[in-house]
Each structure stands twice: as C-alpha cells, then as structure tokens.
C-alpha cells in the first residue's frame, strides 16, 4: 500500500477519487471538492472500525467535500460492510467498472435537479442534518422512507434512511420525530403504510430492552425457582428439595418413597423465592431494562410507537430538492446552529410567541486571534455538539449562545453559562488553536423592550 488516494478519470469522463487506507477527506488540503465526482474505496485500513469511520466521514451528511457524491466500494470489501450498506452506492471490481460508471451518471442526472448545500457551511442544526438525509435519498432515487425494524439500532427501526447514523442523541430523536411531523404537515411526505407497532423505553425512546423477571416485593432478579411436589397419600405439598433424600424422593411428612408421577405424586406448581428478601411468590413481576439509558421501567410504562413507511410527495420532492424546505421545516427550531440572519429571525419570532414569564438570554463572546474560517467552523461545530440545547450562531468573530429562560431562573442560567464559558476558555487554551475567548457578556430581552431595539443591541455592539 504505497499510496492512500489518487484521482483517475473513468470512461465517462468523471473523476474518481480512489482511496486506499484511512483518509480524512475534509482534512486533506490537496484535494478540493471540485477535483473529483465520485469516490471508490479500494481497501480499508487496519480494522473494520476504520472502514466504518471512513464511510461515515465521507457520507452525504458528515462529509463536506463528499456531500452527495456517489461512493463505491471494492467488491472484495462487500462482506465487511454489514450495517453500513446504505452509505454505499454500490460495489465494483475496478474504478472503471461499467455498471459503476452508469450508476454515477444516474446519480448525477438526479443531482442536476438538487440544490446542494454550501459545503463551506458547518453541519448546522439537526434539521439541516435531516434535510441532508432527504437530499441524499432523493439523489439516489429513494422516494419512500423505507422504514423497517432493525435490531442494530437503538431506536429499533430505520426511519428515513437513518441507517448507520445511529449516533442520534435523545434530543435529536425527538427533533427527528418533529421533523417527520413537519414534513407531513407541510405536505412534503405522506404515510404510505403501517409497518409495525413497537414498544420503546419511556426515558430515551430506545428499543434495546431486556425483559427481566423480578421479585414483586424488592424488584431483585436474584430468584430461585423450584417446583413443589404433592404427595397424594398424605396431602403433603412442599418444595422438591424437601423431598430429596439420598438421591430419591421421600415424603418429609410420611417418609414414603415417591415412585411414580401421577400415581404417587405430581408437580402442581412452581414457586419462586427471592434470594434477596426471601419473599415467596408464584408470579414474577416483569421489569424492563433499557440498555441505552440504563434505566428500568415496567412493561406497562413502555411507549407504543407506530412505525409507518412514508413517501415523498411531488411537492415535497420539489421543495426538498431546492433549499426552500429548509426555511419551512426549521421555522420552529430552536436548538442547534443557525446562520446569523436566521438566528436573529428566531429571536424575533420568539419575542412574538413567548410565554409571559419567559425571556431569552444570550451569552456572547469573541474569538480573538489568528484563526481561519475553517478552524472557526470546526470550533462552532464542536460547540454545537457540546451545547446542543442552546441556539448557536456565529458572526464576525463573535459567538452567540442563546437560551430560553423563565425570569425566575435567569440568575441560575447566567451562572451556568458563565461556567460553560470558563470551561470553553480552558478547552481553547488546551487545544492551542491560536485563539482565545474574550469579552464575554450577557444580553437579555427585558419586558417591554421593543424587539427591534433588542436586535439592534445584539448586532450594534459588535
């Protein structure tokens, strides 16, 4: 393996980026997005996890340079792909493979109708993330949300091509559900058919659940189950162990030997004894342990979730292909990154719709020092992941973290944000990014203040 990547034109004139080993495309400055049209992974690095990492970093969602571009794998890697299959457009024996070339053309035919996202933009908020999934699906001619039950995912099913992207946090999952609803409300997608009803954890909506028998009194699972024996002759009933005598069954009451089931004795029940609290019972209580959030629930507490398959409508296909859908679907999004103009619109929107005792608190600080745009975007992306519950924006070296807050909790939140800021300062220092955080201050919308004034305050003070 003497090289890790090269670019080669295929018979149709498309440039194929041939990758061998682990390459983090977005970090390689030699390769620009316009240098290649498709990716062909010839071999993976040291392990399967490297292949998985490679595919995810080059996916339509995470990869910037590879955004929506076709990607293929060498046919020899097929057995190693497993659950990552949806991230791959196909398998080929060589980069010049005819079928592969045709598939690339098919994808480009579809991409011609799709407005790509600006690849210099960060991953931005969750809705953009979901929209990227939709665009990917449309570019591959998948118009149906092929929902199916999959054991490999914590949520238990692969709704909306979420396959292999299962690092969704709980917060993202709930947004994802809302996203689906919004798509339906906007008429972009419609339910095609009912697939299944599953039960998920009430705390984290995960479906990786263990059903365990437990003591109805102390909830311990350390149980001993033992059959009881009924000796017909003397009407004695007691656990089997009380009959055990020198390898035989002998009645503890009348000392007769038990020879024949149905004639001398029978086994009318099984009795459980809890080894923790010594409670005896006939019926265990079921408890459900969620492997995702490690919480225990009762089967009756589980949430029933109907799984439907969805289909994009014509209107939906048009809106999702262009970037029109972004504004429509994300108008009520709060958490996540927004461009500065959207950020201000959201603040304005909030001021019209907020509750009486609610306000918005903005933690603003400046990135000072020599740092390029890409570095800033990486930093913002990190921030977004870390503080996914805040609304986040960036504008001319200023970073804004905004949170909705009740008036009574204003001071507590301020303290929390101050601590977050100090933590960030330390992280920036440790990472040695060539920059530092300065000029932290708080802005909040006071009761009675005109929203335009507040917006001006946010923008003007920079």
């Amino acid at each position, binding site marked *: 393996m003497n090289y890790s990547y090269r670019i080669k034109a295929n018979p149709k004139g498309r440039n194929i980026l041939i990758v061998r080993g682990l390459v983090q495309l977005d970090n390689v400055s030699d390769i620009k997005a316009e240098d290649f049209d498709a990716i062909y992974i010839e071999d993976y690095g040291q392990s399967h996890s490297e292949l998985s990492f490679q595919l995810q970093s080059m996916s339509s969602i995470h990869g910037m340079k590879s955004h929506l571009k076709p990607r293929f794998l060498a046919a020899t890697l097929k057995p190693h792909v497993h659950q990552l299959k949806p991230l791959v457009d196909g398998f080929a024996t060589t980069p010049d493979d005819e079928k592969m070339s045709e598939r690339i053309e098919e994808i480009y035919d579809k991409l011609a109708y799709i407005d790509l996202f600006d690849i210099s933009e960060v991953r931005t908020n969750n809705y953009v993330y979901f929209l990227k999934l939709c665009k990917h699906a449309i570019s591959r001619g998948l118009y149906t949300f092929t929902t199916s039950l999959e054991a490999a995912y914590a949520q238990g099913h692969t709704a909306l091509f979420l396959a292999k992207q299962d690092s969704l946090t709980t917060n993202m999952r709930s947004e994802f559900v809302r996203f689906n609803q919004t798509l339906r409300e906007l008429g972009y997608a419609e339910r095609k058919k009912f697939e299944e009803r599953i039960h998920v954890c009430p705390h984290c909506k995960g479906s990786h659940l263990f059903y365990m028998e437990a003591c*109805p009194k102390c909830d311990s699972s350390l149980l001993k189950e033992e059959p*009881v024996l*009924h000796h*017909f*002759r*003397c*009407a*004695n*009933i*007691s*656990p089997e162990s009380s009959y055990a005598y020198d390898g035989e069954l002998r009645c503890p*009451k*009348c000392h007769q030997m038990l020879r024949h089931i*149905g*004639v*001398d004795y*029978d086994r*009318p*029940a099984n*009795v459980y004894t809890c080894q923790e609290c010594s409670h*005896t*019972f*006939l*019926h265990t209580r079921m408890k459900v342990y969620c492997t995702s959030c490690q919480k225990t629930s009762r089967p009756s507490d589980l949430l029933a979730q109907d799984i439907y398959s969805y289909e994009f409508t014509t209107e939906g296909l048009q809106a999702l292909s262009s970037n029109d859908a972004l504004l429509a679907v994300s108008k009520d999004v709060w958490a996540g990154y927004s461009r500065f103009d959207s950020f201000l619109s959201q603040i304005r929107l909030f001021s019209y719709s907020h509750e009486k005792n609610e306000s918005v608190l903005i933690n603003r600080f400046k990135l000072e020092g020599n740092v390029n745009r890409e570095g800033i975007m990486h930093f913002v992306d990190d921030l977004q992941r870390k503080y996914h519950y805040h609304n986040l924006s960036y504008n001319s070296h200023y970073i804004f973290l905004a949170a909705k807050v009740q008036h009574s909790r204003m001071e507590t939140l301020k303290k929390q944000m101050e601590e977050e800021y100090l933590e960030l300062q330390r992280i920036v220092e440790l990472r040695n990014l060539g920059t530092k955080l300065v000029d932290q201050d708080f802005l909040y919308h006071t009761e009675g203040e005109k929203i335009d004034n507040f917006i001006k305050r946010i923008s003007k003070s920079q």
Partner: protein
Amino acid sequence: MLDFCFDILDGIIACFTRNLSWSAVISTYWFLFAIEFPRYYLLEFVIAIWHKITYKSRARKRAVARMKLYIENPLITILAPGKNEGKHIYKLVKSLNEQTYRNYEIIIVDDGSDDATPLICRDLEKAGYIDLYLRSNIRGGKASAANFGVHYAKGKYIVHLDADSSLDRDAIEKILIPFYYDPKIKAVGGCVKVRNAGDTLCTSMQALEYLKTIQVGRMVTNTLGIYHIISGAFGAFEREKLMQIGMWDIGPGLDGDITQKIRKSGDKVYFAEDAICMTNVPTEWHALFKQRQRWSKSLIRFRLRKHFDILMPHKHFSFLNWLSNMENLLFDCIFNYLWLFYIISLMFVHTDKLMEIFLIGWMIRYCFSLVAFGVIMLVSERASEERKLIPYLFVSTFYTGYFLRATRLIAHTKELFFFSSYKDPWNPKKTSDLAQIEGI
C-alpha cells in the same frame, strides 16, 4: 276427610283426658326423656347457667390474655384454600381489612380452579390486598391446598378460613386470645353462624341448628374438655404444632381429623364462642342433604376407623379424648340406630295411635326447643337479631328430629358398609384411592 280429623282430635282428647299419665308419657317417649333431654337440653342449660355465673372471672382472664396478645403482637397468617372461590376473595379481604388485629398476612391457595380465580387473585396480589397467591395447577384436594399454604406461611398462628366466609371485626383477635390462656392450647375453633338465614326455610333451619349445635353445643363440650371439632370455616392453629403433626390429611372431614390429631398429641384445643364467622349455607334441601352426608361419613371414617386407638386403652390413653370420641360416637351414631329401633317399635306397638303419638311428641319437642332457644339467647352475642328465628321453632322438630337424623343414619350406614367417603368427588380420585388403600 272431616271425619278423619275429628277422629284424631277425639283420640288426642281421649289421650289427654283418660290415657295420659306421666308413666305412659315417659314409657312412650323414653328416647326423648332418657337420651335427648339430658344431653341436649339439661346439660346445655346447666352449662349455660354456669357460663353466666362465671362471666366475670372469664372476662378477667380474657382481658389478661388480650393484653398478652397485644404485647407480643405476633404475625399471623390468614389462610384461605379453595377451588373456584375467586368471586368471594375480594369480599373476604375487605372484611379482613376491618379487623381489630392488624398484624397479619393473607395467603390464598387456589386448588386448580378452572374459572376466573387466577385472574382475580393475581390482580388482588398485585394491588397488595393479599400477600401471597399460591396456585396448584392440578387439583389436589382441600388438604393439600391448605398444606401448600402452611408451607409458605410466616405467621406464628395460622387462621384457616373458608373463602366464602366473612368475619366480625374482632373475630381474629378473639380467636387468638385463647392461645394466651394456656400454652398447651395449640388450636382454637371459631363460632360459625349462618349469613343467609332467612333466604329459604332450609337456611333458617340451619341458622337455628348452627346456633344450637355450634355456639351452644361446642361451648358445652369445650367447658367439659371434650371439644372435638374445629370448623374448617374458621379455626386457628399454632404453625409449629401444625407442622409437627404433619398438617392436614385427606378429607372429607379433615377439620375433625386435625382436631383429633392435636388432641392425640397431648395438647389442648379450645372453642372461642365469641369469635364469630359468618358463612353461606346451602339454600336447597338436596344440597344440604349432600353436604350433611359428607360431614356425617367422616365420623365413621375418622373417629371409628382412623382414630379408633383413642377408644382403646394404651400407653398414652387420655380419658377426656376417650370421652370426647365416645360421646360423639354414641350420640351421633349409635343412638341414631337406637332411634330407628325406637321408631319402628313405636310403629308396631302403637299402630292405632301413631298420629296422636306423633303430635304429642312434637309438642314435647317444641317445649324442649323453647328451652334450647332460651339457652341460645343466654349465650349469643347478638340475641336480639336471632330472636327473629323463634317462629321456625315450630318446624325445627322435623328438621333436627327427622331430617338430620335420617341423613346421618343413611350416611353412617353407607360409610360403614360401602366406604363411600372414598368415592366422594369432593376429593380428587387419585388421593382418595390412596387414602383408602392406606386406611386413612
């Protein structure tokens, strides 16, 4: 028809005016005067008076025992075994919830029910109304169900109940008190009364009978130290003692059997006449007939056969146990045959005056029953409520004097010659067959 009635009336008048002398009455009704009156009326009257006289000393004794009970406050187990009793369980636990004695656990044993009992009981267990629900998937009989429960019981005392019974709110407390009179008392029987008295003539007659034979009758045998049956419907046992004697054996009549076992082991049993349990009794005569047949057969099966040794001199001979069984055998079995002989002889000797004899007999019995009712009124804790049964005394002669006697006679004969209790479907065949082979 009218002539016939006048003939009888003339006969009675003639009887009273010319033929009736004390000697003639006594010689005709010797069975009534020589056997029934001393045992069932005179003795009970005397003991009831004695009971009244000693009321204060007994009350003091009871107060001390009650204090001891509450100082120790032992956990007790309330055990209700049964088949297809689900519909009664909620009512039972509600009545237990009202008890003055609070430290108890409830165990319900389901002997292979084939109705909704498992569902009901599991729900009640989940809701915390009962502490343990045990179920035999295969029916094993009442004894095995009760033994199943005892095995998992944690209480010091076990109160055995029928699932369709309900208790006075102080019944548990009162059935436990006698354990603190004497450490030798290892089992206490409660007083069973009829809940559905007044439903039919049949239940009203049984209500009267229960008052006389259980509340008064057992109070008398208890005072004499020959109390011999702790009702399956309501009885309390020391758990350790129960385990020691091997708990219940195969029935029917297992309540009498276990009382015998405790007495034989040298310990005492006691009757708490004030610990009241109410139960529903059969409303139809044929059902009552079947029930009494079953009960009566156990006298032959257990007292005459299984525990015959009590009647014989041996190393651990006890006069009171002998007397207890002898009294039971004599009055409930042997004298029944004597009664049959007496009736037949009356028929042959006084063929022409049968109707007169019958009517005079009824009058004498009616007088006796008034005395017996007076005794009931002396003993009962709810005399005013039970007074409404007085009108039924008119017909009680037919019930106790003829119906019950005839039923017992048939049952005893069947059991003596045909061992019919072993064929009773009340018990599963598999257990009855083995019990017959073993002679238990």
